């Protein structure tokens, strides 16, 4: 029933050591990123894509017993932090993996693929 399978939307959560941000912003990394973006546009799968400011700019909010608690920083303090995300709409998980593997940060960080409801 491949013909009637609707495309699936996936969230790609791109995370890496924030110190390595220049590895994407400059030089070869930049070229790889641009090639990745061009590939997504060619496939016509990109629904959203954003880069994030570093995790030190994050604020985490919790409500406990009616109180709004604000903390400085991300909800999890780990070396690798989410630096960007993309929403893609493609055929299946194999295509999503192929796309995720093309992101330059996958070489030193990782990309988590989550199907959207």
């Amino acid at each position: 029933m491949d013909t009637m399978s609707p495309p699936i939307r996936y969230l790609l959560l791109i995370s890496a050591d924030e110190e390595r941000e220049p590895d994407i912003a400059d030089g070869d990394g930049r070229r790889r990123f641009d090639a990745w973006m061009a590939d997504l546009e060619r496939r016509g799968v990109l629904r959203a894509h954003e880069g994030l400011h570093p995790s030190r700019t994050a604020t985490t909010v919790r409500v406990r017993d009616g109180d709004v608690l604000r903390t400085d920083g991300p909800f999890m303090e780990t070396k690798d932090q989410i630096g960007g995300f993309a929403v893609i709409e493609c055929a299946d998980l194999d295509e999503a993996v192929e796309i995720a593997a093309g992101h330059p940060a996958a070489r030193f960080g990782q990309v988590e693929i989550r199907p959207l409801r």
Partner: protein
Amino acid sequence: MEDVTQANGAGDHAGPADHVGQANGAGAHAGHANSAETNAAPAEGAGADVGAAVAAAFRDEWGRVVATLIAWAGDWDLAEESAADAFAAALETWPRDGVPDRPGAWLTTTARRRALDRLRRAKTGDAKLRLLAATAGEGSGGSPVGRPDEPPGGPRERLDDDRLRLLYTCCHPALAFEAQVALALRTLTGLTTAEIARAFLVPEATMAKRLVRAKGKIRAAAIPYRVPPPAELPERTNAVLGVVYLLFNEGYGATSGDGLTRPELTREGLRLAALVTELLPGEPEPLGLLALLRLHDARAATRTSMDGELVPLEEQDRGRWDRPAIAGAVALLQRALTRERPGPYQLQAMIAACHAVATRPEDTDWPRIVRLYDQLLEHQPTPVVRLNRAVAVAMADGPAAGLAQVDAVAAELVGYPLLPATRADLLRRAGDHAAAATQYRAALAAAGNDGERRYLARRLAELTSG
């Protein structure tokens, strides 16, 4: 990781498994006496012949019906439920109407109709229902080839076998290995969740959750239902080979409480292994696995005595081994070895071949077997392979040398049933009867089935009465 994940190494039936008379190399002791009957229990009064026909259809057709239904409707749970419905319907109608000429076709058609009924009740969208309804009739399925009513066709047709597609999908790398194996056993062979849980040595609830999660992930993450493209085949095939080997072992070693094996599982394992070799003609490891399975299968008839006691390798009647099958398997293995890319299955097949070509037990080339285990350890540095190697060392250099090797690995094999059995066997050979008896008692307590227990009890009786 559970015991079953050691299948690649532990499934070596030419290792301690045979020397001590234990059949189940994978350490996966499933009781299969009540095999598929949860899904299709022959009803009381249905008539023995019809009951047997349904049971036979279940063995032969379950995997095909499920695979075809998944291909058609794209829904795993629906496929399994509808297949179970179809077998239940067979139990009702076959006694009245007779067994159909082509049971597989009847079951597939019935399963499709039941699936449509289920979808209508679930108020599935009109478009999908219309499309499915249009393809529900016999002979117009969503599956292009490999329908159950078709005899095996040429290589091209068999490459498209729905079951192979199902197998590769079950072995998708986005699923954990334990989930891959469990899913393949459930969907391809119809083993019940309880049986798979026993094979994996986990509680049934754990296994049920694992299967639900795996199917949930396939659905939500849209893991595609297909044989992967050529570039990905070698990587994906490793997982498939592991599953096929486990499937074979389940049939070969799953001697249940009353001494039965499950030849349909070994058949399915042999068939799938052959299919993978056709799909990957350039790859040596599938050939190695196929050779290994055929070597094991060639002496299957001699592994159990008339009264169900396991017969260790050295006591098997070699005159009853299937010599043409052994020659064919050795030729396959040689074909694999010409590629000069050895791997764990080729090495295990080479070890099995050492046993199979020895006319008498004393003709066995044990030093060569030790060297082959050394090579196998480079690929699979597992304690079970080291235990197998220790037995070969004992046969080559004497039981004391073997026991020292067993002691060196024992701490990593606590709770492994073949550990006391192996020790007992080597101590008996060394002439230390008191220590051997203690180990036979421990092995008896851990043994998985009657065949093993009878063998161990006989050895124990020999030691303590003499």
